[in-house]
């Protein structure tokens, strides 16, 4: 992502007051949403944080975003053949409780908006797993007018799993990779999102024109 991070030339997104032009919410709705910016939550140090990271890695609760075709691969993962529960992985129906966000394949502009919203509603530390080539570079939809090419320009991605579609084994491999990362203390993408909040917002707002939500969805 670093290559585009300072590339601010394409459209103007901020006004003179530093406020997003595409703020989206009408004035009468502003009182209904909290729009505090996300903050960096520094991890603890030493063995305590290692312990907590171990716990985090061994208890991954999935929020599956299933509008792409990859979502079909999540189901076998739960069933007896692959049984993700034995790895401490469980599905969870609400972003509030989930820690792992799996994007099941291509993401159109319309779904991107929902992805951003759900991601922001998850509580940190949180991890994202991009499933399938479409999340990597657009996959077979790489030249579509409506499908994003690189997921990591909109939300931070911890692990990509390439393939069209990747099989459940690949998904498990990705999850194991993620566990390793978390245990190593590298699962700090939530903080990265907060640090580079403006850049992410700019990218998001560039494609999501109909921005009827607050700048950060608590």
């Amino acid at each position: 992502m670093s290559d585009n991070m300072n590339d601010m030339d394409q459209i103007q997104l901020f006004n003179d007051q530093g406020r997003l032009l595409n703020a989206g919410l009408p004035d009468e709705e502003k009182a209904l949403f909290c729009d505090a910016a996300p903050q960096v939550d520094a991890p603890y140090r030493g063995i305590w944080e290692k312990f907590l990271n171990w716990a985090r890695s061994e208890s991954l609760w999935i929020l599956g975003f299933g509008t792409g075709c990859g979502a079909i691969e999540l189901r076998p993962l739960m069933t007896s053949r692959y049984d993700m529960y034995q790895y401490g992985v469980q599905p969870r129906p609400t972003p509030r409780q989930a820690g792992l966000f799996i994007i099941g394949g291509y993401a159109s502009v319309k779904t991107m908006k929902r992805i951003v919203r759900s991601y922001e509603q998850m509580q940190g530390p949180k991890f994202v797993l991009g499933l399938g080539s479409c999340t990597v570079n657009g996959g077979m939809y790489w030249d579509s007018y409506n499908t994003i090419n690189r997921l990591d320009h909109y939300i931070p991605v911890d692990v990509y799993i390439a393939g069209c579609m990747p099989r459940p084994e690949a998904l498990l491999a990705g999850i194991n990779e993620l566990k390793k990362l978390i245990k190593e203390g590298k699962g700090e993408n939530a903080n990265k999102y907060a640090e580079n909040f403006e850049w992410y917002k700019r990218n998001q707002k560039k494609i999501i024109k109909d921005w009827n939500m607050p700048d950060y969805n608590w």
Partner: protein
Amino acid sequence: MVTPIVIIAAALAMAFLLPVLEKAGKGLIKTLSLLVLAGFFAASLSWVAQILQTGAIISQTAGFKAPVSINLSVSMMEATGLAVIYLVALLSGAFQIFVKKAVWQGKELSLYFALILGLSGLVMTRDLFNLFVFMEITSISLYGLLVSGRDERRFEGGFKYMIAGGLSSAFYLIGVAFLYRETGQLNLDIIVAQSGQANLYLPLLLLTIGILIELKPFPANGWALDVYESADPGTGAVISAMNTTALILVFMKLMPLLQAFGSGIVYAALIIAGLTFFLANLAGIRQTSGRRMLGYSSLAQTGLILFVLLSPSAGLSEERGLSIIASMLRLDTIEVIALALLINHALAKSALFWLTEFLKKDALHKSSEEGDYRGNRGWLIPAGMAVLALTALPPFPGFWAKWAVITSFGAAGNIGGIAVILIGSLLEVYYLFRWFIRTQAHGEDGGDVIAPQVPEDFAPEAAPAPAGLTIKPAWQIFAPALSIIILTSLGLAWAFLSLSGGQELLLLPLAALALYALFDLIALPFAVKNILAMAGLGGYAYLIYGELNNMTLIFGAVFIAGSLVQLFLLFNKRDKRSGLLPFLVMMILSLGNLLVFKSSLGFFFSWEMMTVSSFFLVIRGRQASRASLRYIMFSLAGAFMIMYALADGFRGPLTGLVFAIGLLIKMGAIGFHIWLPGAYAEAEDEVSTFLSSVLSKAGLFILFITAGIYGQTFFPGAGNAFLASIDINAILGWIGVITALAGAMMALFQEDIKYTLAYSSMGQIGYMILAFSIQSHLGWVTALYLAVTHLLFKGLLFMAIAGVIMRTGTRLMYQMGGLIKKMPISFISVLLAIIALSGVPPLTGFGGKWLLYSSLMEKGWYLHAGLAMFSSGVAFLYLFRLIHTIFLGQPKTGMFENIKEAPIWGLIPQAIFMMVIMGFSMFPSLLIKPLQAAVEMVYPAAAEGVAWQGSTVLSSLGYWNGSAVMYVTMGVFLIPLAWLMIVNGRIQKVKQFNIVFAAERPYKPETTHYAYNFFSHYQKALGFLVEVRAERFWTMIRKSTDALGGLVRRIYSGNAQTYAFHIIIFVILFHLLAGGTF
């Protein structure tokens, strides 16, 4: 001092002179007429004074003794009757002259004096033929008066009147002729003196029929209705008050004759009178024309007076006031009763007739918008008082007279008589109150119980529009006002005489009513009035404190202290709210008086005062017309049952049962509950709390003390094997538990918060009935415990909700939401209340549950206990719904943006109640020990009762330590809280739409707030339990009564020939009843 003959002469002179004098000036004749009428009244009063000293005044017209000349005799009965007639005559005349300027000129006044002449003669003369002459004079002058307007219907009415009058005269005259042939006498006194040698059946029959027709008996009274309807109100008053009074006096004159010679005729007249009373009332409920309805009421009242006069057992009452008055006036008790009923009827009915003058339209239909006379106090106060007087509610003379009659009947075992009077009265109550309520209804009244109609908007109440009333200037109301004032003073005098034997305290509610009404009148600021009310209550509490025992002290605390605290709530609003405090204080004092009465009459008087005052509190609600009608109907039905039981002295086998049913009605037990939700919910928000938390305990209290007073005879069952074989307490128990369940179930499906709370009250009362019926030490402690705690949490709920409704302007729960952030203190008080109400430990409600189940288990009522647990679960449902839909969930952004916390004055009483609840929760012994002491009066042995071991209360089955529960709960609450605060990371406070919404966002709070039809699945599963059965049953009763009334009414076709035919039928009927043959 004038001799009676002067009256006749003066009236005659006026009748002749007025047309002549009219030339001299209209002002002159009006003044002169009024002066003369005033003189008549003064003369009649002076006769009363004189008779008290010297006895009856007998005036011999030609200076000879009877039978040579005609005697005019005025005894006490006649004098007082004439005083009434002249009073109404004076007021009526003044009314016609001053208020209805265009109507009466010299001609009419002349006729009027002729009429008065006739009536005076009727009352005074002792000569039968002379009586006929006066009857003719009366008829003709009245006919003249009737047709003096331009209204075509009047000619018709007058014509019918002439036919009826002619027939009656014919009968009378023939009767007189026969009588003369048999006895050779026309003088009444002499005929009576000659003890019966001759067969006087036929002459007396004809004579009686002649007079009775004039008195409009059933069925020969159709003509009278047309007269009433078509006559202008002044004339209506004249017929109803003056004519009837005079003719009843005539009938009383004949009574000795009838009793001496024809018991068959007396019997027939009695039957006819009873029928008239009952059927006229039945037909009355179908009337939409106000005056015609009043006409039916007049017929009924006439029937009632005759019925009382003719009943052999009437007048046996030993009521204190009655005997004092009788000895004072040197009259028989029966005469005093008749006189009281006469005065009551004459003054109240004439007042009502005059008052109809001011209504724009006579007819009042269900959805009539002309009915909105709300706020026209000048009209409503006299009308309301007149209706109260007519329906024999305290303090009017009718109440005392009716009490005397019923107790006499009771003493003589005349249950049929009691039934006729009470059922007929109930019908009369129905239509009179319905009429009164409709005159002040607020357009369409909602308040459907099961499916509440949603009021469209909740705009603040507009100032009452002066719709349809034409009282301007205010003095126009003088005639009804005066007659009501006189009537009230007479009633008060009687009340004082009756209650002076140590029960003067019971009059305090009336004094309070007057006092606070005066405060309203001089427009004191509401806050001052309220402070005075509190002071008054405080003083009252001090006054009665010495008379209370353990049991009454508890209810005293509920009634007086509970109300006193809740009075703070009234400081909430700044507007005047005239009429609120007078009735409220009156109600509370009446409740207090229930604690200290010393006689059946004292009890019943206070009970009725309580009913009346609470009725006026209910009717103040914006849409309370239907609810208030139901309320007064059920209340009075219950009261009448109680009256029957009291009159019967709990001797009859069923009396106890009837009494209990009367109380159950008042408590809103299942089956009789349909008045309850409307009354509690539709009353003003600040008033509902008093009704629900305080008033609802009245029935329970009476249950307690009667069970104490009457002991085993309360439910005697003696002499009736079937009744003895069933345990009435078992029935009561089932009624209680089913009431509890039904109340909870119905509360579940309400959208209107106040209906929820009202049904909830019903359920809670059910528990109290259940606990009472256990009839053990523990059971009674439970019932009392429930009563006290119900006061606390239901008061808390109603007060908090009053604040919420005040701020949001809606009663519909689903329209609210998220108010916890705006009204946190109200939230806390509702929270405490619902925890307490649902019986969740550690708050005080659990004590109630624990006691209840312990006592039920002790008694062996396991099924009751199971059902009670089930209903307490259901209660949990509606309570959660209540707090959730109002305080949690999504606040409605548009509507309630700038809502503030409820006013401080609403919060103060809530805080007090909360503190009391917390205190009782921490230290249950504070509450339970006094209750034990109270119960020990009846159940002294505490062997199976409640025992104490430190702060642990023990029953024979279990134990409960309120303090320990409180400490443990605090511990297990505070430690996790501390833990949570330690481990929590950074917590962001968010706004209402920051919820996960399936990756979408909410757009409207209305569609995001799950509140409407909250328990739809429950309705699917168990909704069949709460179908509107009771309501349907009572509606069916009402409709069939209505239909019956319609059937009766249909015989009055409005056709003169039919009416003549009725008269013939009447004659035949009367003859047959009297035992005659053809």
